[in-house]
């Protein structure tokens, strides 16, 4: 046990010393890794910003069920309870006739004619149940519940509102958000694979430059782990430092552009959310970057040293 600990300590110590003695090589490898890890981080933040935009769009879309005046409040509450049980439903809001009228007036406060007309004919606004879906793809499922024969009887003709032009608009938004999600995930995966390959090649080149050392250590009788270990430690240091530098670069970029971000907008896309997301998830992103850097770095060095550690068998 003690001997294993000594060996482990020697491997770590040698890795650190080698890192410091090969500064030029280390700087070159770290520079490439910083760029690639920054690309991964950037694509993650961009994806989160898209997700936020999709969530904002989803939150604004609801299905409205308009209830007949003959429908009692007790019947309405049974329907609300039924809807709340559905996993596809994020939130349900019930407005009785009075509350629905108030909401209508509030929505149309600038249109005095509409408000006067509503007051003249009494309260023409039906009691309304507003259903917010947890996922836009689940709207049809909610509609199926609302259009069962017993639930249809409770609603005015034409209810629920997920029909006609509005249906087309919601379907278009649903399709667009689905495509955006897929693009986001594919982009992150593609960037991650490209970056992993770049880091692998960088470390492979760094180890190629020192292949003679591996051969000499082999000739002296060093075991595979004892030769490979310091290279793995060195690569782990590359990964750790690259991750930290990458996070610092993104952090500096957000700090430098914070005012510009707050003032800018790309329609629905809330760019400022990227900065908020980065601040809120700083330590998670740092941990993730370090994990990615160390895992790709160490795996690359294990693979890259393999070919120089082989014995001649023929």
């Amino acid at each position: 046990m003690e001997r294993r600990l000594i060996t482990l300590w020697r491997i770590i110590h040698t890795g650190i010393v080698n890192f410091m003695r090969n500064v030029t090589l280390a700087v070159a490898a770290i520079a490439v890794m910083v760029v690639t890890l920054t690309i991964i981080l950037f694509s993650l933040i961009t994806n989160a910003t898209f997700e936020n935009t999709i969530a904002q769009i989803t939150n604004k879309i609801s299905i409205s069920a308009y209830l007949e005046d003959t429908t009692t409040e007790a019947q309405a509450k049974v329907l609300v309870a039924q809807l709340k049980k559905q996993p596809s439903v994020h939130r349900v809001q019930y407005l009785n006739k009075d509350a629905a009228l108030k909401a209508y007036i509030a929505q149309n406060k600038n249109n005095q004619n509409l408000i006067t007309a509503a007051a003249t004919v009494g309260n023409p606004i039906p009691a309304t149940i507003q259903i917010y879906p947890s996922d836009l793809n689940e709207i049809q499922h909610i509609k199926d519940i609302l259009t069962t024969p017993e639930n249809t009887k409770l609603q005015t003709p034409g209810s629920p509102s997920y029909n006609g032009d509005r249906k087309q608009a919601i379907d278009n938004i649903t399709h667009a958000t689905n495509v955006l999600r897929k693009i986001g995930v594919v982009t992150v995966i593609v960037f991650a694979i490209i970056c992993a390959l770049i880091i692998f090649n960088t470390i492979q080149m760094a180890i190629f430059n020192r292949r003679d050392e591996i051969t000499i250590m082999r000739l002296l009788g060093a075991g595979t782990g004892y030769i490979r270990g310091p290279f793995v430690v060195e690569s782990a240091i590359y990964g750790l430092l690259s991750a930290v530098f990458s996070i610092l670069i993104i952090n500096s970029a957000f700090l430098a552009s914070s005012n510009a971000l707050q003032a800018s907008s790309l329609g629905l896309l809330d760019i400022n959310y990227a900065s908020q997301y980065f601040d809120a998830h700083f330590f998670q992103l740092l941990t993730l970057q370090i994990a990615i850097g160390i895992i790709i770095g160490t795996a690359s060095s294990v693979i890259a040293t393999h070919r120089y550690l082989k014995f001649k068998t023929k």
Partner: protein
Amino acid sequence: MILLDRVTKKYVRSEGTALDRISLHVEPKEFVIVIGQSGAGKTTLLRLLTREERPTSGKIIIGSIDYDKLKDKDIPLLRRKIGVVFQDFKLLPNKTVYENVAFALEIVGVSNREIRHTVPKVLNIVNLKGKEDRMPRQLSGGERQRVAIARAIVRQPRILIADEPTGNLDPKHAWDVIKVLEKINRYGTTVLLTTHNRDIVDKLKRRVVVIQGGKVTSDRASAGYKH
């Protein structure tokens, strides 16, 4: 004990045979000089002994280790039992003189205390005291060769193989190296030395094996050789 029995080595890509049915028996504590022209097969012979190469046919036994039965995972264990001085030194370029010698002990799990005790003594034997912190690139050819010798003997191997250890040295440094090898041999280590240097062969008065065209053409004691 080193035993080679009708060992042949053919390289697939090159024409001819590097070694052709060579047989050699070296007793424990013996000092044997292998001579021959460039390309005669001396280095191939040593590469077979360190298991850098495998023979095409024939049998090799060192101590109690039969190379036919040696698995890949056991090759490092074999190499730890043999000290090797390479013609091109093969020092680790990123390690100091001290670290290069200590490395041979570290890989066999020797404690730090023992390393701190042993390495300075060995560096003293090869006259490198005071140069412990130098990097190999800061040393002369002779000094590098002595580091290689220190690294080869620090584990006190039963067998020391030296491949043209004087090839890159001036006469004075060459003799310094040979004296170290003789000293090691007196302590009981079997030494197998390859050289071009006729002067060394004549003055050492040891058993001389001549290899020509991959064959042993002569195996005799030099004048005055006593074993």
